[in-house]
């Protein structure tokens, strides 16, 4: 089925919203793979900055996506899974 440009965008926005937490989880688990602490190049404050930076990034992305999602539309809410 061919959709108009705007409904099409909205569907892709939903896909983005669904994917966002998965990306977030991936990046949250990433530090587990880094070299153990005490090693050269990994400092506690570095971890702190990384995690908070990631956090802010997730919030900003979510804030960017949310307004487009919450708009009500006439078509059925749930698309194909």
């Amino acid at each position, binding site marked *: 089925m061919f959709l108009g440009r705007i409904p099409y965008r909205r569907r892709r926005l939903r896909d983005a919203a669904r994917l*966002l937490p998965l990306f977030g989880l991936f990046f*949250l688990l990433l530090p587990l793979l880094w070299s153990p*602490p005490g090693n050269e190049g990994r400092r506690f404050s570095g971890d702190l900055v990384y995690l908070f930076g990631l*956090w*802010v990034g997730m*919030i*900003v992305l979510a804030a960017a996506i949310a307004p487009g999602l*919450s708009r009500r539309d006439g078509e059925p809410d749930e698309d194909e899974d």
Partner: protein
Amino acid sequence: MPFNLLVLACITYVILLFLVAFLVESRARRGRLGWLRSPLVYTLSLSIYCTAWTFYGAVGYAARSGLEYLTIYFGPTLVFIGWWWVLRKLVRIGRQHRVTSIADLISARFGKSNLLGVIVTLMAVVATTPYIALQLQSVVLSFGVFAEHAPDGSAPLGADPTAIWVAAGLALFTILFGTRNLDAKEQHHGIVTAIAVEAVVKLFALIAVGIFVVWGLAGGVSGMMQRIDASAITGWAMNPGRWTGLILLAGVAVICLPRMFHVLVVENYDEGHLARASWAFPAYLMLMSLFIVPIAVMGMERLPAGSNPDMFVLTLPLTEGQGALAMLAFLGGFSSATSMVIVEAIALATMVSNHIVLPVWLRLRPAGAISEDVRAVVLNARRVSIGVVLAMGYGYYHVSGGSAALASIGLIAFAGVAQFLPAMIGGIFWRGATRVGAIAGLIVGFAVWAYALFLPSFGPDAVFPAGLLADGPAGIGWLRPQALFGSDGMDPLIHALFWSLFLNGTAFFLGSVVTFPGPVERLQGAAFVNVFEGPLRPRGLGGGHVEPEALLVMAQHILGDEAAQTLFEEAARAQGKRQSILPDPTPAFVSDLEQRLSGSVGAATAHAMIANVTGQGTVTVDDLMTVARESAQLMEYSAQLENQREELARTATALREANDKLTQLSVQKDAFLSQISHELRTPMTSIRAFSEILAEGDLPPAMVARSGRIIQDESRRLTRLLDDLLDLSVLESGKVQLTLGLANLREMIDRSIQAAEQVKPETRFVILRDLAAESLFLRTDADRLTQVFINLISNARKYCDAPQPEIRIAVKMKAGRVRIDIADNGSGIPKDAQGLIFEKFGRLPGEMRAKGAGLGLAICREIVANLGGTIAYLPGQGGAAFRIVLPLRLEAKAA
């Protein structure tokens, strides 16, 4: 810092909260909430996730385990930015099915099973009571910190009395503002706003302490970073199991905790608010945790070794001489504790009253007798439950004596409520989930949690003997509570979480696969899983042979008179009925009503009550047919048919009513002429007879006088009749001249009652009024309106046949209109006559017929219509009752 000042500040703060809640409640009652139900307030109310355990405890957590405290916030962050997956569906289901608690959700999904409701309620109580105790402990500890630092060393209260006072105060607040209304749709605006205020206070407090630490003590960001890297906190290493497991656990807890479910779903006012909260709530969490590490590092650096890191937020400003900042931090911690306890108590009390107290009460009733005021029972049950929940929290605190076990209870509670996850998520995404599966999963998961985590948490030899912990029951090694199935060396929390959720999910899945759901269960399953697919609602039982009046009486007992009447009236209008406020009891209406009731008493109870009234305790063929129809390709088709059929039914109802009315009108037209003739001829007869007698002359003077007076009386009667007729025709033609002005309703009613006393002056009537509500000014035609009141009150005096006659006058403002109910306690007007009384000469047949010309109510109706309002007979009030609805300000019609 004097201790008394602290107590004073604390009390002032509490009074402030009461004021906020009170003001908001009174605004809500007047329907002027405005920004108070904005996404901002919704987001802030979600912050009860951050309890005192996170306010004080996060710093301690960071001091002990480095960055691990962040997992507690990362879980919810992922759940919220991923709101499109789960939260959106939960909120939609919650709103559509008027879910009152997480127990209600699970119970409703699995065929409105009350057994499930009871299980979830008990689990929630067991898992979260210690958590409430933890909050009380934190308040007591923070008081203790101040007492230690008090210059005079005075500590007027011991730990226990403090906890009692806090618990009692919270109980009072919660009962006052949490049990005001019943319908969950009306929601607790006062409490939610107070919680939002507390959210701001705690965030502000924590940030203030953080700024003081970073810029006041450490000399800026880079200085802080150096201190962090130099501190002992860097000794912590990320443990992959705990890091991943805790993120998962916190993410689960944020939707499964009863209080979170309550603010997230039950108190949700608008689904759009969730979109805003999806990023704003993570932002709040981020800000709350931003300064945790700096405070922890600085505390370890500056405070003497051995000080409790859980209290760094308070002790750090105190030792640095920042009394005011410490006070602010104290209020922040106090806010965190109180807001959590308040909402938790409401959430638990709703579950306990809806799933345990009410069903028991209903069972003890004789069948079919829902005659008492169920509202009062529900509200009282809820009040008592709040008291009990808080008493249990205090009891737990008292018994555990503030032990170290309590400090770890936060995560243990998380793991306990996480057991709801399979039943909840499975329930809303998987049609195949069944009641048996849900029960099996919940019980297995809860048992494993209790065995592997909760009971051992009290320490060796407290509940479990040390031997059992070390070697397993009866020496069976693979049943050791903290090393099930030989999983040795795991972190106890992760171990318990892993096994309990795995076994819970397995039992849920297997139980669901091998059993077959009942029809109601399948209906509810379809309605929950496909909540976004159009308006197909689950069909409730019932329909057909129900007396709508019986439903109205029951609904009034539960929702309150006003809400129930509005609901029925709207339904009647939607069915195309213009004359009556009683709708036909179609299955759609009965199912709607059931959902409304479930907002007050829970799905299972509402279902039982409706089945009770409709006399259908079991599933009918009709319901089975509906189940059969639910297959996917039939759904849309049947939805269309349904729409057309409803449309047809509406039209048919309207036509039938019109036809009935026309038939009645043509009969009435004949009757009208004959009535006019009668009403004119009767006085004429007396006049003619006596004037002839007078004309004959030679009468005694007394007889002359008497004849003259009779002629005069009868002429007056004739004039009055002609006036009434003329009045009516002017009113009906709409050419009436209204004299508009501001008038006090109370004065009008005073005047009317006085004027109506001429009717049956010998009978004493008790008149019940609400003078306060009547004291309002209307812009209307005061004389005309008074005429209506006189008429209605006179009628009540004339026809009320009760031995102790009573007239009730109730006034209520609603959406810019004023509603005046005038009712007596007589035998009322028979059902078949109710449609006729407003017609001209529409007097009652037989004994109720009386002397008036029968134009009174017809004139009333025309006057009220000219005043821009409506008047209707109000059935089911235990007497004759009339309802007038008028605009507050009647604007003069443009000429």
